[in-house]
């Protein structure tokens, strides 16, 4: 088994928002995306892992910010006016992820997704829906909901210890 079923809930629309982390291109289900905004300095939280940048005030809601570049050790975690935060709606939670840039919205049918080979990368293949091809580019389709609620993200209470 190299692919996982898409998370429960809304069936994947087949439309993916693609973003880049370093030289790689990732795709996440567009229905999980609430908005895209510029990076603002979050309030640091003591004792949290380095990829959790802290929390921001998103119109009165306290939202944690995860820097995927640090998490996956991709690209330089520089923060400037071009740094982008994708605000995700995962389950009942709102989480922001920092990426290098947002590129496109593309259509990927589940048939066109190829299973990712299994090897020890920082991104567990459990969270990869598959590898898609667009022109010559490889899009890594990520099950963002699984990823964000996973243990290593330390975003949810179960991961607290």
């Amino acid at each position, binding site marked *: 088994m190299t692919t996982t079923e898409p998370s429960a809930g809304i069936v994947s629309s087949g439309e993916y928002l693609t973003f880049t982390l370093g030289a790689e291109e990732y795709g996440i289900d567009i229905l999980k995306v609430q908005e895209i905004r510029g990076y603002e300095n979050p309030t640091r939280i003591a004792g949290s892992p380095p990829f959790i940048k802290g*929390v921001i005030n998103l119109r009165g809601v306290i939202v*944690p910010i995860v820097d995927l570049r640090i998490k996956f050790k991709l690209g330089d975690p520089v923060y400037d006016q071009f740094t982008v935060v994708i605000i995700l709606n995962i389950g009942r939670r*709102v989480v922001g992820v920092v990426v290098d840039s947002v590129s496109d919205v593309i259509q990927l049918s589940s048939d066109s997704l190829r299973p990712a080979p299994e090897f020890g990368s920082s991104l567990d293949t459990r969270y990869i829906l598959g590898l898609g091809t667009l022109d010559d580019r490889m899009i890594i389709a990520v099950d963002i909901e699984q990823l964000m609620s996973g243990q290593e993200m330390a975003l*949810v209470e179960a991961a*607290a210890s």
Partner: protein
Amino acid sequence: MSIDMSQFYQVFFEEASEHLANMETMLLNLDVGAPSLEDLNAIFRAAHSIKGGSGTFGFTDMTQVTHVLETLLDRLRKEELKLRPEMVDAFLAAGDVLRTQLEHHQGGPEADPEEIRAVCARLDELGVDRPEAAQAEPATPPGQPRHLRLSCVLPADLALDASVVGNLLDALAEVAAVKVLHRPDAADPALDLTLTTLRSDGELRDSLAFFVAAESVSLSAHAPEEQAWGLFEDAAEPAQAAADPGFGLFDETPAPATDPGFGLFEDDAPAPPPAQGFKREDEDQDGGYGLFEDAPGRRENLPHRDVAPGEAPAAIEGPGYGLFVQAPNGSGLFEGAPGAERMKAEAPAPEKSPGRRISDQPGVETAKAGRRDNDKTLTATSTDTSIRVSVEKVDQLINLVGELVITQAMIADAAGYLDPAQAEKLLSGIDLLSRNTRDLQESVMSIRMLPMSMVFSRFPRVVRDLAGKLGKQVEMKTVGENTELDKGLIEKITDPLTHLVRNSLDHGIETPEKRVAAGKNPKGTITLKASHQGGNVVIEVIDDGGGLNRERILAKAREKGMNVSDAMSDGEVWLLIMAPGFSTAEQITDVSGRGVGMDVVKKNIEGIGGRVELESITGHGTRIVIRLPLTLAILDGMSVGVGGETFIVPLTAIVESLQPGQEAVKTMAGDSRVIHIRGEYLPVISLAEVFGQGQAGDLTQGIVMVVEAEEGKAALHVDELLGQHQVVIKSLEANYRKVPGISGATIMGDGCVALILDVAAVTRLGLRPGRTQ
């Protein structure tokens, strides 16, 4: 298309529980000796509304109970019955049953059917049994007595049965003075009588309807041959004679047959629903039998056994009983009959005036409808002044206003850089905006505020029940019920407060004998007091009982292996009772004394940001003071800067802030620093260290904030104090998770997030040997 009623259930549940609570409060406040008509009316309306609602939604079990309740209340408010203390008890019990039923419909456990039955029976009984009121019965109805001659032909089989004739005569005797001219015998089955009565022919026929066919009765005007007095003397005889065969009959009568009639007749409710009638029978079976044996006078009920329950027995019964008691000679007539007095006592309330009686007969429906209309107009005024809104909507509103306040602060902040001369209009506009925003925020916050009476109102009942159980005399006083507190806090304070009150009652207030021996009023007093003090709401539970016993507490503490000394101050000793597992009650009662009391109370109150203080004078009483923040959503805090970050320290935890001199800072075991403040050595906790910003700086360069937490006092070292704010508490856990040392987050005026310190947790973190680096 039918409407799905279930969508309205919630409204009914809320309303019904409100009505129940109201009813209880009013019942407890009711002056039993001289109840005000207004109160009785209000109680009646509450019961009636519950009945109406439960009927509409098909909760028939509740309808039944409220119906019985309402019937009795209705008679009370019409002053047909006198209020007695046991009635109040019964009403309260009925309220409890209704509450259980209500909870059952909301998914709670089912109400005990036995209990329901018992309560209904009790209410019914109270409605029937009215010794005083019987005497107070006013004069004869207006109108002239008429003299009639009545003859009827009885069916042959009945005519020879002396008891049937006796019953018939008795039935008539209730409505008229009777003189028998001819008793039916084998030769002539006709019955010939003269009657002196105030009743209409129809009523007389009704009285006979159970015995003979209406068409076989002939009534005609008849000139009185004798004085009424003579008539009565004569009449006593047949009644007496009839009593004897009655006895014989009762012994033979199969029990079930007698019961329906009985149930119906005791129940004075106009046309009671059959279900209710049956319920009563079960209860009454025993009493009923006893009655039959010694009260032949009640035998008139017997013939009614073949009446269908729905046949409006009240119509016959009403006038019958009425005259029986009303007629000045009524008791004389029955004097010879054993149990005559008893009958009188058992007779349901006679109606006050004939007019009322008439409305009660065929017009039961109209009378009720009229009453209902009346209710509507009365309740309409009170419902129009409030609306029911879900808490979520209010919270959403509060959130939005919180946003507005932040936005306004940001605008004000930005406008601060403008040249006041050029932007004069803009700046005055911003001033106005900030004023309006503050007002708006206050008004919106006040929506969530509820008066303390919401909590206090339940205590008279608790105290009343408990005092009765413990054999103590206690008076409950409440002061400042109108003090408002956030709804969330109100809900959370109820349990700890209940515990404190129960404690005061159980351990504080002494038994009346002890109190008298101590030269006190045998009646103890528990006072609940709420007031505003600064930004806090202060709730006090004061009793004038025995106070805390220093020696016993110390002895107990030693027994528990606590570290105590005789040199401890009273205040310190009192605090011991809030230590976990501490209970000095000599025996564990079901009221309190399981040793989980005070420490749980303390923890709960601290959990909602409050504090508990305790004062006691042995022999004179105890005062427990609870200080609470006004609301859960807003916190008074001091913002402090630590390594360029801003934290909020709850103001309630701060004792003082100071800049220590070099001489005050000492070290202990090398690196642990303590600070010497006002004779105390306090451990120093560097926030920078706790929150992983590297090494703690020089103490004399920063500010030391003395805080008090569960573990005791500690000194928090921060870089600077930024200011005091009222901050809106936001949850970190909603989208993230719990962070050690942090209780929540808030949004500052510049739109940034600031974390709120959990002082107790920070103290723990800071004092732990392996601290987070």
